[in-house]
């Protein structure tokens, strides 16, 4: 199935959860804010929220330093 992530179409396996997807991108789940289909997910939802065909994701990734 397909999702749209930060404007780019991506092919993913059905049943993929948000946390799995972030890890597949090589990112640390704790440093990413996720908007899925117009809603900001809570941190607790990352492990449970299953992506659907056609889901629209916006990932905002933070790097360290301040």
């Amino acid at each position: 199935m397909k999702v749209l992530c930060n404007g780019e179409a991506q092919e993913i396996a059905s049943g993929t959860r948000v946390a799995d997807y972030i890890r597949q991108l090589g990112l640390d789940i704790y440093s990413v804010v996720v908007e899925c289909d117009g809603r900001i997910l809570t941190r607790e939802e990352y492990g449970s929220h299953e992506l659907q065909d056609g889901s629209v994701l916006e990932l905002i990734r933070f790097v360290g330093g301040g």
Partner: protein
Amino acid sequence: MLLVNERAFPFNSGMTLADLVKEQGGDADILLVNGYPATLDTALSDGDRCCLWRRGKVPSAEEMRHLLYARHSPGVQSRLQERVVGIMGLGGLGSLVAIALARMGIGSLLLADYDVVEPTNLNRQQYFVDQIGQKKTSALRDILQRVNPHVSVTIIDRRLVEDDIGVLFQNVHALVECFDDPAMKAAGLRAALHSLPGVFYVCASGLAGYGENNTIRTRRLYPGIYLVGDELSAAAPGQGLMAARVGIAAHQQANQVVRLLLDVENEAG
């Protein structure tokens, strides 16, 4: 009427700054009109705001207040003076954002950090050698008092967690995220989006090293919510945090806060 050192003064047609200096005793050599340096032959207009001062004179507390604000554009400082800004994390970003906002005449700052000043902070953070070992919250408060004693400073001396942020900062007009830890940066943005409707939010990501100046940018994420940085340059071995680039990012954050507080961002666009 003119406003001379914040006091009303009668205006006469054809008046120059030299006439005003003479009437005020004749010894002023720092001259500002409407927040900008002016010369003695400057023609004055009714309603002008003038600041006259003799270089080196030590001001009274009341005079100090007027002088500190003499360089602000009329109308700007009076609006900033009524605003409260929160800053989360008082390292290289947070210490500089606080000082910039204090210099610009922000009314109140709510400063949060749990750490103490370490020698390894001084390559980029605004603390001094004689403050090593002090809590960053109280050390920064002391610096701000020396910069602008009219800023009201409240400190939160603890390690913040995601659930705190919406409660501790519910009464600020703008919140600036200056954390070092990327997990707290993400936590801060989630908290702002979930729990702080109506609060402007300016966060930062990607400011380590000495990369190109202009890759540090200010990007709108959501209405009233902005991200400063190149979004890539993580602090890591071989790419440390350095004063200049951290400073570029911190000052973009501070300027963005001012733009939001003065309502110059077109949020519809």
